């Protein structure tokens, strides 16, 4: 036990001192699963442009949302309302520009505006009340979901709408490029760059970390924490809406059903990416690879002979493993003694 706790805090100390980076372990996790599936999926062309496009497309559709969700987590908040905002925005565009045949640009603006509003509501409630964001966004998840369904049926008599976007919109949001890559992939890559600069280079990035690190000190340091959080909630909804837009334009059709799965997928990506659930720490590249890792496991399984029903099991184990690697970063919050003491408790 002695040696144990020693090694442990030893490892921690190292992580503290030479600022070991979560993206390293996320990259590591990514490489591991990639190799695994390359082996098991070889004879089914997992390793091919087309093969790659499957999980990269998927990663893009999740990653677009995982980034802002990650920002919120670093700032100490959660947003699970994305599960309802995605279909809501897809339906909005579908109904406005598809069913009512409004010009696309107008439909786009109104859709983004709707998302903006949801984010604003989330942000205001979270910052003005003492209610934890998990609960606030859980409530908006249900509310927005229910509203989408009701309005869809009210306006179109159906829970699904078809929408064929004009070519320019198709090229921008929903077409397939060489090798089977979708427009959304380029959005994702572009945002990866922009968000990287935002989080790690711009002053605002610093604010995000400070806010999540110690809310009160951040405010005392003159950081407008509340406005920052509201902005992040809005960013989160708007990015989700962008994903929704890409979806409806790509698939020419939108559905109103709440997408609960998305909630889990984004959180998994972010945490596998090494962001601290308790806030204050994380990296963009980490989230990037976290998303890719999830995507490979989710899609790669289809290239193997493994029983598909096992994929959930594998996702679970992969998640544990990845978080295990990152777990150490918790210690940065000087929780060393904690874990150490805990072991003791068990021993007996």
């Amino acid at each position, binding site marked *: 036990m002695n040696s144990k706790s020693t090694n442990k805090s030893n490892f921690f100390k190292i992580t503290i001192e030479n600022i070991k980076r979560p993206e390293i372990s996320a990259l590591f996790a990514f490489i591991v699963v990639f190799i695994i599936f390359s082996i098991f*999926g070889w004879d*089914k*062309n*997992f390793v*091919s442009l*087309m*093969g790659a*496009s*499957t*999980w990269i*497309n*998927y990663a*893009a*559709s*999740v990653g677009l949302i995982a980034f802002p969700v990650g920002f919120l987590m670093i700032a100490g908040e959660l947003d699970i309302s994305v599960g309802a905002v995605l*279909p809501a925005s897809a339906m909005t565009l579908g109904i406005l520009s598809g069913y009512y045949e409004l010009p696309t640009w107008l439909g786009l603006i109104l859709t983004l505006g709707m998302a903006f509003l949801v984010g604003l509501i989330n942000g205001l409630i979270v910052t003005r009340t003492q209610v934890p964001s998990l609960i606030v966004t859980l409530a908006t998840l249900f509310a927005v979901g229910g509203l989408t*369904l009701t309005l869809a*049926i009210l306006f*179109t*008599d*159906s*829970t*699904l*709408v*078809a929408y*064929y976007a004009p070519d320019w919109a198709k090229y921008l949001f929903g077409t*397939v490029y060489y090798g*089977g890559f*979708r427009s*959304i992939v380029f959005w994702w890559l572009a945002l990866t760059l922009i968000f990287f600069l935002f989080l790690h280079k711009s002053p605002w990035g610093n604010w995000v970390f400070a806010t999540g690190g110690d809310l009160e000190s951040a405010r005392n340091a003159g950081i407008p924490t509340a406005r920052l959080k509201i902005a992040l909630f809005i960013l989160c909804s708007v990015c989700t809406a962008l994903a929704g837009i890409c*979806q409806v334009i*790509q*698939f*020419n*059709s939108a*559905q*109103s*059903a*709440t*997408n*609960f*799965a*998305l909630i*889990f*997928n984004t959180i998994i990506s972010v945490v596998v990416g090494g962001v601290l659930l308790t806030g204050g720490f994380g990296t963009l590249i980490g989230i990037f690879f976290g998303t890719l890792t999830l995507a490979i496991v*989710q*899609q*790669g399984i*289809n*290239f193997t002979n493994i029983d*598909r*029903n096992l*994929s*959930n099991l594998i*996702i679970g184990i992969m998640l544990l493993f990845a978080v295990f690697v990152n777990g150490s970063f918790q210690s940065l919050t000087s929780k060393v003694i904690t874990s150490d003491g805990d072991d003791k408790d068990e021993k007996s």
Partner: protein
Amino acid sequence: KIKIAVIGGSANDGFWNIIKKGIDDAAEMVEANGGEVNYLRVPNYDNFGADLVTLVEQAIAQEVDGIASPVWVPDAQVPALKAAADKGITITMFNAGAQFKEELGALNYFGSDEYVAGVAGGQYLAKNGAKKIMCHIQVPGAVNLEARCQGVADGAAESGAETYILRVPANLDGDLAGTSEALKAEMIGDGNIDAIVTLAAWASDAASSAIDQLGKTDSVALGTFDMSPAVLDRISNGSQTFAIDQQPYLQGFLAVSTLFANLKFGTRIATQPVLTGPAIVDASNVDLAIAGVKLGAR
């Protein structure tokens, strides 16, 4: 005042919103004759048996005179509905569970069993030359979905076609991109797949996108349960083979209207059970369907 309770599927299920329209329309006729209809729907399919039985109990609590209900989980529902019948409540069935009609002494049955519908789909594809069919289940373990794919498999087997039931992880449910890529991956992995059956309209949106990403629009047949504007558009432009239409509107409408008519006027349809489907919507009859869908009735 005659009260009728209708038990149905989740609000998130596009299929059931069409049934709901049938019910709502019938409800107007019912109300016109001084009756009342209450539509009880399960919140989701995560806890099917329990939720369905709870709804039956609610109907009983509301002292209704008749219950219209599908039977998905017989072991759970049949006893509950029997109990209702013993209380003198008239039972009529629709959408699923035809084989329990006698046991429940139900008034009639309207619908095409999920399984039967699956069989029809399987046969259609096999007849049109499909050798290997992939049947996609978005919520593994969900009773009604499993039944559909089982049907597809059996139907296809009759004509010697092989069926591969793909159960994607539940965290892809409703995820167009994820599902589309998953199906694409399967097709990349197994070039022999020459037909896909999806169990929801949105899933076939995903499937068709996967198919034309691989440029296999001509070589891979696509069939789906349920219809949506997008589905029908694809059928008419040839990028999708067919949609299995159980004519949910009729299921809801007939179940409610006939049940009420029986309770109020003592009328009774001689034909039993009344099969509303499966009707296969393909290029030949798609135009009519489109009109219906626009009105939310198909």
